[in-house]
């Protein structure tokens, strides 16, 4: 279960799920709209990092961002630097020029990736997926769509556990699963079929189980959990929405940056 055992600070927990969602979406819009890497980085440092600290998840948040992002940053810095033309050449490598303009583009894209990834990570840390879905269902999102989103967020650990079980079974029948890359790639092939088939069977049985819980019953639903909200948070959500819209307008009308 992702995020289930983590300790979230009370302040972050008290945020209504839609407030958390709005906050993170604002960060993403700001990151996508602002025209320079320092400004985008300011969004990360000024919005996301303090919220992660408030939720007492700063260490895990930064480690997750770093671990996922670094391959993309390295690729961007290399590719953009060598293949973006520009007048300022920082150094040459054979026939290739590494330009300052390319580095600037790479840093801007990297910063935007950082904000996007950071917002998604922070949302997972401070908001229970089922609480978020309850909030969206209360606002009119169909139950079925909410269910798909919640279970998709939880599918990775389930998939991993099933893949390990299948691999163990294959290993016990003599399949080599460790060693050089070609060996591991060959082991991947007999894993895929059983993994997909067992997942499909699980889908059918889970659908039956959901029907047994009246999941598709039309009509009013109640909720065990009451989502705490306040006028202040409702106002904050409106302000965040306006800020996001303003950023989009400014970005597409005033700056017209790539």
């Amino acid at each position, binding site marked *: *279960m992702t995020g*289930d*055992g983590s300790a979230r600070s009370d302040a972050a927990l008290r945020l209504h799920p839609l407030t958390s969602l709005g906050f993170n979406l604002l960060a993403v819009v700001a990151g996508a709209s602002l025209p320079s890497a320092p400004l985008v980085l300011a969004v990360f440092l000024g919005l996301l990092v303090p919220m992660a600290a408030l939720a007492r998840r700063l260490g895990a948040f930064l480690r997750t961002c770093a671990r996922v992002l670094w391959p993309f940053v390295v690729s961007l810095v290399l590719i953009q630097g060598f293949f973006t033309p520009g007048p300022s050449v920082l150094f040459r490598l054979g026939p290739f020029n590494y330009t300052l303009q390319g580095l600037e583009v790479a840093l801007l894209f990297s910063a935007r990736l950082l904000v996007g990834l950071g917002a998604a990570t922070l949302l997972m840390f401070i908001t*229970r997926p*089922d609480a978020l*879905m309850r909030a969206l269902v209360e606002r009119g999102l169909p139950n079925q769509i909410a*269910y798909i989103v*919640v*279970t998709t967020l*939880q599918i990775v*650990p*389930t998939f991993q556990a099933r893949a390990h079980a299948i691999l163990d079974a294959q290993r016990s029948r003599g399949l080599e699963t460790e060693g050089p890359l070609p060996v591991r790639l060959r082991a991947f092939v007999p894993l895929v079929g059983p993994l997909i088939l067992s997942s499909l069977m*699980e889908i059918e*049985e*889970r*659908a*039956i*189980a*959901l*029907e*047994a*819980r*009246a*999941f*598709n*019953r*039309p*009509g*009013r*639903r*109640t*909720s*065990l*959990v*009451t989502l705490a909200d306040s006028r202040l948070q409702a106002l904050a959500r409106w302000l965040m929405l306006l800020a996001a819209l303003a950023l989009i307008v400014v970005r597409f009308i005033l700056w017209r940056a790539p």
Partner: protein
Amino acid sequence: MESAVIAVSGLRFRYAGAEQDALQGLDLSIGEGELVGVAGANESGKSTLCYALTGYVPHFFSGTLVGSVSIAGHDVTRTPVSLLAADIGLVFHNPFNQISGARTTVLEEVAFGLENLGVEQALLRPRSMQALRATGLDDLADRSPYTLSGGEQQRLAIAAVMAMQPKVLVLDEPTSQLDPAGTRAIFEVLRRLARDGRTTIVLTEHKLGWLAAFVDRLIVLHTGRLVADGPPRDVLAEAVEHTWGVGATRYTRAALAARRQGQLAAGTRLPVTLEQALEVLR
């Protein structure tokens, strides 16, 4: 038939694309509070019967259905499954796949069905906790369902359905993936549930020893037909004379062996439970 909570007449069903009927002309009547076991070889139609009693046949599993199925006042062939769920509960064999995935704690998982039924918010927690206490899971209310053992997950599935207080509870091989301790725990839960006399329970099982000791009435399916219906002792004694693929309990096998060796009189009623075997030995 008027007082029957389960009334099946002339039920015949063939799955779409199948060459043979899975159920052939079943007639069955079960009263309120009865505990009925269903035995039979693999492919005898047990699961299909469970799905027919709960509306998944024909609404979920398509095919050709003939006959009538009335459960708890509902014409199951015409009522959507989501509307049947309040009165007819289903628990099947895989504990893991019965976790909804929509909730993060055991308590919330049990309340999920009640939420979908629109049960008043003030009643959600008490009814859920009552179901958890009845299944011995109240200490685990705050745990993630995925951290429970297989037996605990199966009890959770039963609790989630029990909380909805169905009139009829159908269980399709609920202990097939459980060890002996898990099996014992499930049957103890069902015994507690059966004591109130309000819930009709239909249970399919291969574990004949448990079934024979638990149910009041046993029916046997063979190639989609109902071939025996009566007290477990009579039905299982009859089953050894036929090739229904039902098997026999260890006590029946021991008595048959004793009979073959002349240590038991030919007319002695065959036991199916430990108590009956001790009675025969006296």
